[in-house]
């Protein structure tokens, strides 16, 4: 039972990351730099919302308290959200939005690849499906990082700045806490430190081609995935996302 509870918490991390990043990408609708790119970003957002539904749906079943994907998405407040801080940040300019997608997709690529071996076969199946989607997200975002980095002077400057701004939010992804360790010991989740190698390799290769400089490692933000201290942005995201469910608590269906 304690193990189910831990797994529930772990699935919230996966589901909340997809959900909040999907939310941020969906804000790009009507605001993308080209219509063709709008199509691409919405496809990514759709994949992410789909992943969130699978992770949260499964989490709700494990919890066994009758909460489904929507109860978890729409009826939890900031204190109970478990997403990493990086997904909560506002989109910023296109360099920032696509840079974030690139860094997270590179992480998810490693993570889902490893989760395919999870002792939790249902989780492994979701990872298998999500890996295909994330492979494309990584490719698409990476292509953009290359074009912006090695594009014009302005695009290079913006892309470099986006990386500098985002970098301190990447540490949280790889720093294991007690829950990550417990999941690893149970054979459910991989060793986060091991994912780092592949991530470094992939990220460095793209940055090199993009003529961008990898930001210096320094102090890293944390507090999202363990719910200790989210950004101020999350509250606004939830206020918007949960508005209808909160304003009409008697409604049974939408």
């Amino acid at each position, binding site marked *: 039972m304690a193990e189910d509870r831990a797994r529930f918490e772990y699935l919230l991390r996966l589901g909340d990351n997809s*959900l909040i990043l999907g*939310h941020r990408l*969906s*804000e790009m*609708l*009507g*605001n*993308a*730099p*080209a*219509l*063709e*790119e*709008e*199509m691409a970003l*919405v*496809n990514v*957002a*759709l994949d992410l*919302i*789909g992943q*969130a*539904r699978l992770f*949260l749906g499964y989490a709700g079943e494990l919890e066994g308290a009758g909460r489904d*994907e*929507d109860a978890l*998405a*729409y009826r939890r407040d900031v204190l109970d959200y478990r997403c990493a801080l990086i997904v909560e940040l506002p989109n910023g*300019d*296109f360099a920032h939005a696509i840079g974030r997608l690139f860094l997270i997709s590179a992480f998810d690529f490693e993570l889902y690849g490893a989760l395919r071996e999870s002792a939790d076969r249902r989780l492994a199946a979701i990872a298998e499906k999500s890996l295909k989607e994330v492979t494309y997200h990584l490719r698409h975002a990476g292509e953009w990082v*290359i*074009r*912006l980095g*090695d*594009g*014009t002077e*302005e*695009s290079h400057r*913006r892309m470099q700045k986006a990386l500098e701004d985002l970098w301190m939010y990447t540490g949280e992804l790889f720093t294991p806490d007690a829950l990550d360790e417990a999941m690893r010991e149970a054979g459910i989740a991989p060793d986060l430190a091991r994912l780092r190698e592949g991530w470094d390799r992939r990220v460095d290769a793209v940055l090199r081609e993009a003529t961008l400089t990898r930001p210096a490692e320094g102090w890293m933000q944390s507090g999202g995935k363990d719910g200790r201290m989210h950004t101020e942005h999350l509250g606004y995201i939830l206020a*918007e*996302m949960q*508005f*209808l*469910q909160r304003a*009409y608590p*008697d*409604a*049974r*269906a*939408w």
Partner: protein
Amino acid sequence: MYTQGLDGKIGPVREAETAEEKEREARFQARIDAEERIEPNDWMPEGYRRTLIRQISQHAHSEIVGMLPEGNWVTRAPTLRRKAILLAKIQDEAGHGLYLYSACETLGVERAELVEQLLAGKAKYSSIFNYPTLTWADVGMIGWLVDGAAIMNQVPLQRCSYGPYARAMVRICKEESFHQRQGYEIVMTLAQGTPEQRRMAQESLDRWWWPALMMFGPPDSDSVHTAQSMKWKIKRVTNDELRQKFVDVTVPQAERLGLRIPDPQLRWNPERGHYDFGPVPWDEFWRVIAGEGPCNRERLEQRRRAHEEGRWVREAALAHAEKRRLRDRAA
């Protein structure tokens, strides 16, 4: 969607004068009459080409601007399923805009020019998208009524005489078949929900009913180019015929939901075999078309902002492609 035939002006077109020119036009009309499709490089009268450019580009602009009122609710969709459906639907609209710009470009006009006209406020798009989406019920109403009206308009356009437009319409109609159904499902859920949800649905129908009827364009008596467009088979059914058909199919759908259509004069006419309905407030229509709708400014402003803010990105991508070309050549 949305070929309201908003603006009859396509600029002065030189009439056929010489016997040779008249003969060529007659041959063209004979091909149309024989239900042949016209393809991009075929000879066509200048008026035909310009009418098509105007109609297809208005149609494309409508898809693109049409993303905005629904986009207004993407981050607030009440369930994850609804959020995914809404995203997919709006994405389809972006795609349909692109198919249509593509079709328009086969007529020898550049997309950049068409977009420029839209952003400069010189091009028209469907009046319906200048209305606000105030409640979640509006998302359902747009699917049910606006997409419903659009489908009615678009189905006959699959047989339009211009090949690329007809082909785009075939693809669009196929993809849009879920749009109306998802909207009706939303409205039905609300209509069967709590009193507050029900109120939301009825209020939304009250606001959207007349603007939806305006989507078919002005009455045939006031529609400047219906006759010529019909002759060229660019348009295959008149505005009034489509409007009547829409009313006839929609009234029973509203009854099934227990919602009231806001038209005291609406009643079945057994002699005609159609519903009679009250006068459409055309003065409102012409005002919205002229720019005095609730959201005209916001809609264009958002498109302009996205275009401006995206400029450095589009330029960077071109600059990168050029660098690559030079590197490849040097290698």
